[in-house]
């Protein structure tokens, strides 16, 4: 099992809040921006031509001699595309990172399903079909599905994001668990993230070996997802240059994400799941 009982219990208490409030007329679990046919009173509003006269609050009229209508909270359903990148670049650092990513994905899926979110599991790396999950009763098959996701292959995160734009609606949300290495430059991210606008979360699981590779001496470096290789002598200066390039890349990605109202969060795989979820869900609210 990816998650322990204690983690299941803890994660079940988290609430999920979409970054952007949806607006549609379908009754569901999330409060919509639109006021309409819900059960909970939300607010008064002056009567406008076209309003339903049945909603006029006559009591208020007798008091204030103003025609007002009662507005109620409307709840919408939210669908989240959860992209999990277990490609070769994510798995080359060892099974610990893969396990950590799977646990994180399971935790996210659990929270989403518990909070009534419709989940679409999108594996990245191997050619796998997207699997939908909805309803709390489906959390177990969802976790099992995550645990059985194939590891390796080449990541095509951008292609999946493009598919999200084609298949999803303007109310769907996207959560990506990846190292975001499959684009030539961050300008491409700008193009792909632009349509998301407060509907995307970029979660970057990283390990210490990614930030400070434990390498030294003459090496032939082989890229995990291609046949490219390069030989060089790794020393302190080379590691510093690597770190600078690494930080610069993700800093730029963060800027692009923020520019489009999305979140970029870097999590350390060495941290316990509880700590990771604290970062993702400050004060018990998971924003997606």
């Amino acid at each position: 099992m990816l998650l322990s009982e204690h983690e299941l219990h803890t994660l079940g208490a988290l609430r999920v809040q979409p970054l952007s409030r949806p607006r549609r007329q379908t009754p569901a679990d999330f409060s919509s921006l639109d006021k309409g046919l819900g059960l909970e009173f939300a607010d008064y509003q002056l009567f406008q031509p076209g309003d339903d006269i049945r909603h006029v609050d006559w009591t208020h009229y007798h008091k204030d001699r103003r025609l007002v209508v009662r507005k109620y909270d409307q709840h919408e359903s939210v669908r989240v595309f959860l992209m999990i990148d277990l490609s070769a670049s994510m798995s080359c650092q060892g099974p610990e990172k893969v396990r950590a990513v799977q646990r994180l994905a399971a935790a996210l899926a659990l929270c989403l399903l518990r909070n009534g979110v419709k989940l679409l599991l999108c594996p990245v790396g191997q050619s796998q079909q997207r699997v939908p999950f909805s309803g709390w009763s489906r959390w177990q098959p969802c976790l099992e599905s995550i645990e059985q996701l194939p590891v390796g292959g080449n990541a095509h995160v951008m292609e999946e994001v493009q598919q999200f734009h084609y298949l999803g609606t303007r109310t769907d949300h996207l959560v990506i668990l990846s190292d975001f290495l499959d684009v030539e430059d961050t300008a491409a991210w700008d193009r792909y993230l632009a349509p998301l606008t407060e509907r995307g979360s970029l979660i970057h699981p990283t390990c210490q070996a990614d930030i400070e590779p434990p390498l030294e001496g003459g090496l032939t470096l082989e890229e995990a997802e291609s046949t490219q290789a390069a030989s060089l002598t790794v020393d302190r200066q080379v590691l510093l240059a690597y770190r600078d390039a690494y930080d610069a890349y993700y800093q730029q990605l963060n800027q692009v994400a923020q520019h489009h109202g999305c979140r970029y969060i870097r999590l350390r795989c060495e941290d316990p799941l509880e700590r990771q979820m604290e970062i993702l869900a400050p004060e018990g609210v998971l924003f997606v």
Partner: protein
Amino acid sequence: MTLYGLSLVVAAALVVGAWGILTASHLLHRRYRRVTVPTLRFWQAALKKQRQDTLGGRWRHPWIWLLLCILAGLLVLGMMQPALTGTRGAVPHVVILDARASMGLATDEGGDRLDQARSLARQYIRRVADLGGITLVTVSDTAAVLSRADDSLTEALYQLEQVEVSPATTVQGMQQALNLAATLVQVDPRTGVVVVTDHELAAETLPVSLRPRMQVLNIADPINNLALLPLEVTPFTEGRTHVDVWVAYWGREPGHGTLSLLVGEETREALPISIQPGHMQRHRFTVAAADLDRLSARLYDEEPFAVDNRAERVSRSRYRVFLPDNAPMALRAALSAHPGYQAVGQSEQADVCFGMAPASAGSREHPEAVHVTPALCPDPRQRRAWMTDLFLGPTLVPVEPNEGSVLLATGSGQALAVRREGTPSFITLSPSLFDSQATFWKQVQFLPIVDAMMQAPRVPSSALATVLYSNLTSDQEAAAAELNAGTSVSLYRWLLWLILIVLGGEMVLYTRGKIV
């Protein structure tokens, strides 16, 4: 294929050594540890810097090792100087025979250098005649093609026997011959070239296409040679004679010497001379006719090696002529006034005897013109000049030819002067030539015609063999030389192109990042 450079063993050792060094360098620089990383993106900056800073790091890549091994192999192959050879098809040859003045020098074995060179050329021609055509070229002031490739072997050998020493001393003729050979090589790259000479041929003077394929056969040590040619005597005035002394020089540095004119053992004049290589100088002295019998010239060098040339004394100072009692006064006067001739009283003592044809009755109304025959003057222009206003008298007395050479004749072919060779030679003249009404003896060309009739020999300037000697060593054993001209097509150029292609390929791979 023939290898003209390194031997196979040496080449193999070089290749093995070079490949061993390259392989060791490659192994030392190879990265044994291969590490998989998520991406090379973040390593690119450091990679680029290292690539710029450590050229030696290029040794790591297997491609580099392989390309360098190929380069080393090609370079060693180039040093082996491979060339395509074979006897399939006709293989033409060019034989260049040096016939300049120095080839007339005597050899210890008798004969002169040209004889030796001719013998070598003959051997070579006979040996390669079956392979293809022979082009025979001789070198004098110019290059002359004596036989072409499509001529028969007999023709080539015949022309070879006709070659004679020329007085030329310049290099122009040799250069022409070499350029001609280079042209023939361009037409057929398998052409073999052999030069038989006694001069040194420097590589830089050779056409480029000939340098790797030409065989030069030197039949003498090409060192300095200061030589004195036989004296030439020119009658000047009565009692005085001009003596021309020719000095020739073959060598590398300018030559210096002292030319002395001796009468007997007494030095009459000493003249310091300076002469450039390949040049001849004429020095004229005026001496008394009476001293001609004892006259000689001597030339010795200032260099440490002894060069002592001595020209033989003039063998004959004045030409001895016998005139009969009935010789015309004009003839007698002409001969006596000429300092080059000496009248003798007996025909046995003479070099040439004159006689008059018996007079016979005959008359012509019109004077007959005197014709000069080619036997007397081969030059047609000179002949025409001599025949100007040359007439007989009214009486024609023909001379019987009697198997002699007709020197003067009438327009109708009747002989007027006949020379019969012998010891002495005999010249029979027609009295008609000296008739009072004849113009023959009154014209200015009378004396030159008489001179020509007597054919007084000058000391030949080309008779080097008998009078010249130098400090040259004896001729080398030319027979030991292997006459094997390079009839092959060199592969140098192709190897060079291959090396450039390999280098270009390496540069392309490097710029595309395929090799570090």
